[in-house]
């Protein structure tokens, strides 16, 4: 009989070649030491240019393989260089999403318990009903576009970033939906939940935004969608509306709850924006394809930015609706424009698209 000591399968129980090879050694960490995010993410999606000896083995009818660089117009000399600054993988993703869900639910439950909702300004309720509620469809549309986009990236790092972005957008669209459903009973019929979609579909103010969202949804290039959403649509429309209007006007109208819902989306966006900028900067600075990529991104900008600027301008009348006036639309719009310019400068596109105002 072998003693427990002799038959132990514990690390270090015996010394032989590679008994201490205790890190994934097939990839180069970006920092000095591999992060947990890198260990669970890098190379999980294989690549014939790295280790995929036999290539992809099932193709589409036209010969396109499972993953193909032809799915985007951007080119890269090393798709594997990108790491998400937010380092999201499953555990932190669920922790963060759950924390947001709990924060909103507690705030709403407390607010309702104290009768806060019934003290909302009635005109403000009307704005929530028609416009805040309309915005949930724009958010949802972006979530759907990203969900589709996470199919096509050339690495797991890229696809994970797009995937968690989709998860955040879809959660926020549901946050708005269920938040309005939660507070509606406290408003005794003053909030008609069907009006949001009605305005999204038919209100002239929202039609250019809907056209923009549908244009992004119709794009088939996943990095074009990722770029359009986080570099153009978010700052020019969604953040403009969330931070430049809702978050500022709510409190003036006795509404301390809605800003809680909206603040989660801003925090989401910050992370997704940093991811996107990091990826796009890598593309723009690619030693081989940088110039080409800058040209493509400039084309995307030429395509989406005017649509977004026009859509934003159409939302302007919403700023005049509340009884208590907030910072004017022009202030908010200028903030959005300079935000876009900052992002473009970060990416290294200032030469191409920085003159917009």
């Amino acid at each position, binding site marked *: 009989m072998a003693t427990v000591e002799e038959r132990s399968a514990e690390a270090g129980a015996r010394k032989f070649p590679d008994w201490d090879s205790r890190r994934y050694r097939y990839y180069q960490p970006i920092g000095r030491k591999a992060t947990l995010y890198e260990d669970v993410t890098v190379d999980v999606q294989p690549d014939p240019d790295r*280790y995929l000896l036999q290539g992809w083995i099932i193709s589409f009818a036209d010969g396109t393989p499972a993953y193909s660089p032809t799915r985007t117009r951007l080119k890269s000399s090393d798709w594997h260089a990108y790491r998400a600054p937010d380092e999201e993988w499953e555990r932190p993703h669920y922790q963060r999403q759950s924390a947001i869900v709990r924060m909103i639910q507690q705030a709403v439950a407390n607010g309702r318990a104290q009768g806060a909702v019934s003290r909302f300004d009635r005109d403000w309720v009307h704005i929530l009903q028609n416009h805040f509620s309309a915005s949930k469809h724009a958010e949802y549309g972006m979530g759907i576009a990203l969900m589709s986009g996470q199919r096509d990236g050339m690495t797991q790092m890229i696809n994970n970033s797009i995937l968690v972005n989709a998860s955040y957008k879809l959660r926020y669209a549901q946050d708005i939906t269920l938040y309005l459903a939660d507070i509606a009973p406290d408003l005794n019929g003053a909030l008609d939940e069907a009006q949001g979609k009605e305005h999204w579909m038919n209100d002239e103010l929202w039609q250019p935004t809907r056209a923009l969202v549908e244009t992004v949804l119709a794009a088939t290039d996943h990095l074009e969608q990722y770029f359009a959403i986080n570099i153009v649509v978010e700052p020019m429309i969604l953040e403009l509306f969330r931070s430049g209007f809702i978050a500022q006007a709510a409190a003036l109208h006795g509404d301390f709850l809605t800003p809680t819902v909206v603040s989660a989306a801003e925090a989401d966006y910050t992370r997704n924006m940093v991811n996107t900028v990091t990826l796009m900067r890598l593309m723009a600075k690619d030693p081989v394809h940088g110039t080409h990529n800058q040209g493509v991104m400039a084309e995307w900008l030429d395509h989406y930015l005017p649509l977004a600027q026009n859509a934003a301008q159409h939302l302007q009348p919403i700023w005049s609706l509340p009884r208590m006036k907030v910072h004017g639309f022009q202030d908010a719009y200028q903030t959005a424009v300079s935000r876009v310019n900052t992002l473009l400068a970060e990416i290294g596109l200032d030469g191409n698209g920085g003159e917009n105002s």
Partner: protein
Amino acid sequence: MATSLSKITAQRGISLAEATRRIADLGWLPTYAQQALKYPTDYKFVKAPRDPMKQVLRSYFPMQEEKDNRVYGALDAGLRGNMFRSVEPRWIEWMKLFLAIIPFPEISAARSMAIEANVVPGHDLRTGYTMQMVDELRHSTIQMNLKKWYMENYIDPSGFDITEAAFGKCYATTIGRQFGEGFITGDAITATNIYLQVVAETAFTNTLFVAMPSEAARNGDYALPTVFLSVQSDESRHIGNGHSTLMAVLNEPDNHLLLERDIRYAFWQNHAIVDAAIGTIIEYGTKDRRKDKESYAELWQRWIFDDYYRSYLLPLEKYGLKIHHDDVQAAWDRIIKKDYVHYVAQFFSAGWPVNFWRIDPLDERDFEWFEYKYPGWYKKFGAWWENYRKLSKRGNPPIVWADTGYVYPHRCWSCLVPCLIREDMVVDEVDGQLYTYCSEQCRWTHKVAFASEYEGRPTPAMGRFSGRRQWEEVYHGWDLADVIKDLGFVRTDGRTLVPQPHLEFDEREMWTLDDVRGYELRSPLVDLRQMTPEDRERHIAEYRKGFTVHKV
């Protein structure tokens, strides 16, 4: 807690049904720009699927976070309880293979949700698809983390440390790729709904994520069960997505012919691939030989035959769908009468020098159990495993090159498992090229199902088999030592092999490149194609007769 905040304050809330109805109403039909169907399908939809599960993201995320807490708590507990002092190395070695493969099907399933959401009309089921997408991110990264944990704590980390690189190179992991790439290529509905959800998840995840944990626990591995049962707890959601989508697909009679094709293809591929891998790991990767334990064949009968075939597939006939009963019977026969799993295990052990894990020789206790569960086993496989044990000592030729009577098998072009049931091997030509298949069903899959036309009906969306599918072809004519170097299956000392035909944790016993030099690897298919028609006929007839292993 008996009282909750909402009880005290008597807050009225909306029902889950109301919540999901509102969420489904987030979608709309675009009028300014039409969404392109990025991923083609030959299926038609007349109605959108419903969501029977009625889930919303705000209850989903906290539920998953809670599950995660239990999983990571169990890993900590495993270390505190000194799990690795008593775990069976035979078992952990096979995890080098299994955990190299499985994250890829998981990420493919996440991608698959992009495709499915893109082609399936309506918004009722989008939340279901979204949850599945995030679940699959969960599965892939939780598995990568488990593997890292083994690497950090198990006696021999070699093989775990190269895991994703090894996945790209090994002949065995390509079989797993055939499984996962099927989720993301070709006809969108074939791939996402039928192959992934209706067959892989509904039928075969039980063997993957329930049978494996039981066997793990029997080998002193308490970590894997917590992780994989947690993974499996997400599957009911995916099965629900699959069933609702299938009901919408069934609604259009025009789809029935394609459904018949796809269920047939998916069932046979899943059987060929999953049963090969999991059957081998469960039966040959264990040290537990209690006779009251269910064998893989017994598990298969319960989960695949009774629960899936009888309770899920058969009822589809009332919608006018043709189900291939004969295939289910044929799969069952392969497992119970034709020794499918045993031949796969034999093949993996034959290939040990090009593996990236160790395979422990069997001993008398193993022989006894196999003979008890599979009467006649020793007569067919006893000599092989006696040889394997004997030849596991350095200085012997690697077993494939030893004179044992074993004939290195042809490989199936469809499922990529070799043609192990020799009498069933089929040869056919597709577009003027000769191919070998393990079975008539696999021949049909390549030649008939994966084509631009099916029974007279154009199927422009169907995928194609492509790439360098045949691993042996890549190394045809190479020296074994060079193959192993090229694969990267050499330890960092530059000479000791990652794979070993034993569990000796002692440098003197471990095979090096010098021990495997001078043996030539050949591709049976390349050789077959080069034969004259007469020689080929003779070779195939000979192959189908099988082989007899004698003791060395």
